[in-house]
């Protein structure tokens, strides 16, 4: 009787995403209403898994035990992808559950274990396919795992709809080949089973031939045997005693063994001729004598199948039933240039698709071999440029100068509070970084915009200061809470000295210093502060480097790229504070009541 219908469902043992998807694709082609995979058993995890049924994504439940999967799904088929190490235990357990058909895929299952499973299965009246098999297929109804191969191969072999040929073979690889032969020489496969290449399969060639004999939908039986074993003799006997009345086309492979000088183990464990009786020639002769249709060579097998089908069953008519079209796999379609869509993300600074990650199109290994500095990496990833050494050194100097400014400033303070509240390092860093803005550390870009505008407008420092005063706007980059003319900022001094030595242009700095000269006349602490100085010097740096076009310079200032130097530099200090607090095992920080004014 047929093993499969359009309603048959299976439990898959082992996480076999590809095989499951192939089964569901077959289901869709056949127009099944219900997916054939009911559940997956995965002892190490019970996460759900998803697969496509047509174009719809569906959930496939995953259970930790076969018993649970069986109870929850009422599936009839158990497909076991467990390895040869655990195939016995897992199949033995499944035999005790209400599955009707069980398939063992693993190769190299010990023979005694395979025989025990076969004996138990027979005793319980179940059908065990394998071990060492790809499984088999019910055309138009149900596909075991990877049987039948690709979608294109299955369509070419017309497996999406039932024919009237029952096929059984030992070899899984050859079953696929034969599906194609039968699909193109007859009205197609009804059911095709590969019993597996081992010496002791769970069900024999004879078992399946007899099933086809009893199935009224089977009109022709095709069998591909193999040297070794005596199964074919029992089939010959069944033919002789008219237990098989349907036409049987058969071929036993391994006729080559006679010319081999010594015993050769073929690819299949069961393919070993122990005696002349088990040779392919002897078995082909016995089958021929008993009334089977046996070709002279495999080369004529397809033609003979066609001939017998036409003579005994009827003409091979052209059939018009097409498979339900399957949506193309996106990545396959991309590979074949069949689809296109705009990308969600565009990136121009780095590429990790090759063996070596590229920074601005240069392999990281090259950068390392050339002894690239942190400044070079920043130049590559932020500005997409290779910049001269004085420029990258200046960037690094900025980082060093902005790295920390003690525990009392906003960023460090916040990080200390977060770290002491038990937050992890990254959270503490973020909490510190979040204070960077218009009042803390974030004035560099604003200052740059102001200096740039003034220079572009050809303003004098005096005209600029007057204009700002008129607008009643504080000049960004000017003024410090503590530092003053009498108590100058050493950081600013260092930056100025470097720039004057290396930069080709320092007109922005000169302008800023001109402004400072005016403002400090009013108040000693209205000096050019570190933000203002960095801003002016980066503008000068951009002007000094011919690598930057005017457009690029304007765009960088507009984007606000200079604050990045403060954010990156200060991260070093903030991380230090977060680590420091953990190291000192500081408790939760609570601000004192006496330091709060309650209104």
């Amino acid at each position: 009787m047929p093993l499969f219908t359009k309603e048959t469902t299976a439990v898959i043992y082992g996480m076999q995403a590809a095989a499951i998807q192939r089964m569901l694709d077959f289901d869709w082609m056949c127009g099944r209403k219900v997916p054939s995979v009911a559940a997956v058993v995965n002892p190490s995890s019970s996460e759900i898994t998803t697969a496509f049924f047509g174009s719809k994504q569906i959930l496939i439940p995953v259970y930790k035990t076969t018993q649970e999967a069986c109870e929850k799904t009422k599936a009839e088929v158990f497909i076991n992808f467990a390895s040869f190490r655990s195939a016995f235990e897992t199949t033995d357990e499944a035999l005790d559950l209400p599955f009707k058909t069980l398939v063992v895929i693993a190769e190299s299952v010990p023979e005694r274990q395979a025989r025990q499973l076969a004996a138990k299965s027979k005793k319980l009246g179940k059908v065990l396919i394998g071990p060492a098999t790809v499984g088999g297929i019910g055309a138009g109804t149900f596909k075991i795992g990877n049987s039948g191969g690709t979608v294109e191969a299955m369509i070419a072999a017309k497996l999406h709809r039932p024919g009237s040929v029952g096929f059984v073979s030992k070899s899984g690889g050859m079953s696929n080949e034969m599906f194609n032969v039968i699909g193109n020489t007859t009205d197609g496969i009804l059911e095709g089973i590969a019993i597996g290449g081992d010496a002791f399969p769970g069900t024999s060639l004879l078992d399946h031939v007899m099933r086809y004999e009893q199935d009224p939908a089977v009109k022709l039986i095709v069998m591909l045997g193999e040297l070794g074993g005596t199964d074919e003799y029992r089939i010959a006997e069944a033919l002789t005693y008219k237990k098989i009345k349907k036409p049987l086309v058969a071929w036993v492979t391994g006729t080559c063994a006679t010319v081999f000088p010594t015993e050769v183990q073929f690819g299949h464990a069961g393919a070993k001729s122990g005696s002349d009786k088990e040779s392919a020639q002897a078995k082909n002769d016995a089958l021929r004598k008993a009334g089977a249709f046996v070709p002279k060579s495999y080369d004529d097998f397809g033609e003979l199948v066609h001939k017998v089908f036409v003579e005994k069953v009827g003409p091979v008519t052209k059939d018009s039933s097409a498979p339900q079209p399957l949506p193309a796999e996106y990545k396959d379609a991309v590979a074949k240039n069949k689809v296109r869509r705009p990308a969600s993300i565009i990136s121009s600074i780095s590429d990790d698709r090759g063996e070596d990650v590229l920074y601005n199109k240069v392999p990281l290994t090259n950068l390392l071999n050339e002894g690239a500095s942190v400044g070079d990496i920043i130049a590559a990833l932020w500005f997409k440029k290779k910049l001269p050494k004085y420029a990258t050194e200046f960037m690094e100097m900025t980082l060093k100068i902005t790295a920390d400014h003690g525990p009392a400033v906003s960023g460090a303070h916040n990080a200390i509070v977060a770290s002491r509240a038990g937050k992890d390092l990254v959270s503490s860093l973020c909490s510190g970084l979040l204070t960077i803005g218009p009042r803390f550390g974030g004035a560099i870009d604003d200052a740059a915009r102001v200096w740039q505008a003034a220079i572009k407008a050809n303003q004098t420092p005096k005209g600029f200061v007057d204009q700002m005063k008129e607008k009643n706007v504080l000049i960004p980059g000017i003024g410090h809470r503590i530092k003053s003319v009498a108590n100058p900022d050493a950081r600013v001094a260092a930056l100025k000295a470097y720039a004057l030595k290396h930069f080709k242009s320092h007109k922005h700095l000169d302008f800023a210093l001109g402004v400072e000269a005016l403002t400090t006349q009013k108040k000693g602490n209205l000096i050019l502060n570190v933000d203002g100085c960095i801003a002016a010097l980066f503008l000068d740096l951009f002007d000094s480097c011919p690598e930057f076009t005017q457009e690029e310079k304007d765009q960088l200032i507009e984007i606000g790229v200079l604050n990045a130097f403060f954010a990156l530099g200060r991260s070093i200090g903030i991380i230090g504070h977060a680590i420091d607090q953990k190291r000192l095992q500081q408790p939760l920080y609570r601000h004192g009541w006496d330091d709060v004014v309650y209104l």
Partner: protein
Amino acid sequence: MAQRSIREFDGKKILAVALGTPLKGALVSSQTDWTLLVKENPWLKTEKLVAKPDMCFGKRGKNNLLLLDATLEQAKSFCKEKIGKSATVGKVSGTVTHVLIEPFVPHKTEYYVAFKCEQAVDVILFSPEGGIDIEENWEKVQHIEVPVLEETPKLKLNGIKDASEKKTVEEFILNVFQVFRENDFSFLELNPFTLVKGEAVILGSVARLDDTAGFKAKWDVEFPAPFGRELSKEEQYIKSLDEKTGASLKLTVLNPKGKVWTLVAGGGASVIYADTLVDLGFGKEMANYGEYSGNPNDEETYQYAKTVLDLMVKGGGKVLLIGGGIANFTDVAKTFKGIIQALEEQAPALKKAGVKIYVRRGGPNYEKGLDLMRQLGVKTGIPIQVFGPETHMTKIVPMALKELKS
């Protein structure tokens, strides 16, 4: 693989360990240090000895390869005489590498027992008249079938008159049967065994183990190549590759001077290509049997193809069949990539020798794989004919043979 012959010494060792009986046997090879061997087996000096090649073949008595009732010196010179020399048993010739020395046990009774596996039953074969003529007395052998799932069989042996002897033999056979089952033997024959002071002593034995059970077995033995089939360097290399990978790689060189070489995917398909060559009358020209399957990676197919192509160039092959069925899940383009790399390396030699290549394959990504083969033909100038699943699998065999005939 599956059922593999082991040396008599190893079979007896497994039995002795499992039955808890002492093992009196010494395995001698060309490497043996006799002083050490005698130190470890003091009985070699005190007892009369038997010596015989331990090479997984039988009928040693009938082939003049058995030394009986000998002294240590005689055994030594027997070893010297046989080891490293050729011996012929039946139609097969090979080099003797190992000799087994055991105590000589004078005896009258020779029992025969063998255990073998059939699909649904284990079969115990017993005869009270064992020894070298067992095949001539086969009608006296008693067949006892024990279903695979049956735990303890009932044993009623025929032909032993003495009641206590009968009990001893039955108990011994049941014990050995248990060992046979628990240690994944696929065949075990004790011929003969005898009783000495109420204890069974095994004189000769043949054993095959199911090597797939190695992962759970108590034994750890070496499986010698079948006698007369010592592996060549290339075969040995492919075997070692096969053992390292989850895929399957097999190579047997049949005729190094053969004109037809094959690189075939799949255990089933490879046999059919070989069959077709034989069926069409070219068995003698078939240089190799082999297969690759189970989705090997391109490095593995490269090494495999390189090995075959080197042999082919050396042997003067004329035709190469790169065949296979329609794969279920093996990526054809990927496996071909390794083969193509090997072909490119040997292209000048193949071209010079006028080699013609025929390709037939189907399965995942086959169009790309076949395209790569066609491009190789254009690039190297080697004539390569390429076919897909629309062409019958073995059609390239007659095409190639026609070429060979002309």
